[in-house]
């Protein structure tokens, strides 16, 4: 039953992607309102899925890679719905929908929805740690998407080749303001996530801790370098993409090792 909610949600994101592609091909690039509602609807079904799954498990539904991917997709959609309209970055929906679709599509297609052989007990600190970290990943994902938009806009301005999409992308300075705010938001949440990880009452695998702290340091370095004006906005945008790629790799590693050695 819960999977139906997820399938409907994925169809909503697919519709947003198809709509963007069709509009782009027709060179009538005005996908923001449609995308915003499609993503909003997709988000509602994602929430329904997570809610049903959570009731079924009796805990926050982040117990395997499948659920982690869906929760991450939900976080990305959540941050987009909060940030997109606030900073007039509605076009971000055209870039957000494919990322969410990819995450959810992968979760649905890959055989990764493997239930734990033993019933996992609820641990509020562990659930808080995992969920807040995933929401932080959502903010990093949006920073990465804004980074892609920044580089796209910057490239067109540098080469003097202005395509239709150029006129729909937000101004460079607005995009960069959004990137820094998303980085700060993600960094604050991730700091909270890492700190709460030490309160779970269970010994944490050293590799995971080192990798998580390394990622935290990477984002701290990006923000500090920006603050000290050591990095130009273009490099910060590029590092956002690199940072999120590292975050995804870490997430996969943590979930994979957690499935091998589950915390009871």
């Amino acid at each position, binding site marked *: 039953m819960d999977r139906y909610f997820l399938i409907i949600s994925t169809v909503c994101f697919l519709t947003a992607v198809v709509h963007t592609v069709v509009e782009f091909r027709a060179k*009538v690039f005005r996908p923001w309102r449609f995308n915003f509602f499609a993503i909003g609807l997709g988000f509602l079904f994602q929430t329904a899925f997570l809610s049903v799954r959570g009731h079924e498990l009796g805990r926050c539904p982040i117990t395997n890679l499948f659920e982690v991917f869906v929760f991450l997709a939900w976080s990305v959609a959540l941050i987009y719905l909060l940030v997109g309209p606030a900073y007039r970055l509605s076009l971000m929906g055209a870039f957000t929908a494919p990322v969410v679709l990819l995450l959810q599509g992968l979760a649905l297609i890959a055989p990764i929805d493997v239930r734990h052989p033993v019933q996992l007990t609820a641990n509020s600190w562990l659930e808080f740690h995992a969920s807040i970290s995933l929401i932080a990943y959502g903010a990093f994902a949006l920073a990465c998407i804004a980074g892609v938009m920044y580089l796209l*806009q910057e490239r067109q*301005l540098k080469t*003097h080749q*202005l395509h*239709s999409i150029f006129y729909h992308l937000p*101004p460079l*300075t*607005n995009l960069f303001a959004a990137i820094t705010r998303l980085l700060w938001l993600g960094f604050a949440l991730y700091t909270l996530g890492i700190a709460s990880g030490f309160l779970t009452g269970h010994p944490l695998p050293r590799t995971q801790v080192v990798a998580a702290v390394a990622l935290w340091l990477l984002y701290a370095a990006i923000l500090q370098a920006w603050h000290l004006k050591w990095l130009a906005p273009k490099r910060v945008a590029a590092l956002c993409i690199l940072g999120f790629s590292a975050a995804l790799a870490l997430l996969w590693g943590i979930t994979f090792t957690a499935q091998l050695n589950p915390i009871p």
Partner: protein
Amino acid sequence: MNFFCIGLSHHTANVATREQFAGNATAELIVRKGACCEALLLTTCNRVEVYAVSNKRVSTDEITRCLVSETRRNLRNYAPPFYRYEDDRCVQHLFRVASGLDSMVVGESEILGQAKKAYESARTSGAVGPFLHRLFQRAFRVAKQVRTHTDIARGAVSVGSVAVELAQRIFGKLSRCKVLVLGAGETSERTARAFVSRGVTDLRVSNRSFDRACELAQAVGGHAVPFDDWTTQCREIDILLTSTASETALLTPEILAPMLRERLDRPLFIIDIAVPRDVDSDVNEMEGVYLYDIDSIRSVAEQSLAMRRQQVAAAEAIISDHVTDFIDSISRGLSRAAQPAKQPSLGETSLRTSGL
């Protein structure tokens, strides 16, 4: 009932011909002398057009005689290239004109304002009746829809507007941007004015002749900066507009590099409209610097026009739907008017009295 459009435009007549028919008539005069029930005269630098409604057919000649001045009325053997559109083609033509599809610069929005003025003027003089009222109100709606649903009006097509549009793509609101105008020529002045009209308040002008810099600064509401100090201004400014008569490049990567280190967090937009160029082209390779010379600005303008032209098909489709719908609504009005009299419902009254 006949409704038609008679006119000439940049497509059919040169400016010398167009000016012979511009400014000699009013909509009221056409109603009076042209035996029309309703008339509206649309005169712009690119067109002179009469939209009219009559009970019997009015010839093109009758209308053109109203348009031409008394002194030229006796000219013989003169056949000006007037076009005539009737019924659905007249509706389609007006919708295309209002949407900027028939303009010299496709998608320009000035024509909509001119059409609104012409409508207002004709309405005030009593020359517009229920039919032209409906036709023009629909035309304004169609124009708005075309602009909203297509990219027909996107992209700038002149030096000043391209510079301003690019600046907005980089900085967003220009109210907090600092602009330095280097060189006090005519194009500089026009572009500086375009920046001021978009909210720039901190505008500095520098020129070899300080008096000329002061003069331009006063004219555009900025302040003059001595020519020797202009390079140091690059630490603070966001936009540099340069058009001096210098034979060599005034700004090179070597000069700019130390200043850029202090302003790594802020982009620098340089518009170099001088020929020969004032800014070394290698400056564009520097991080955070966006350099546009006159050729690249022209290229952007051409890209904008090409993009607008690509939107024409989408705009035509919107117009076509509206033409069909408008003609249908008029036909329904006519058939209702032809039926035996019954108590009119609210909203039908004006249509009935107009005979539609």
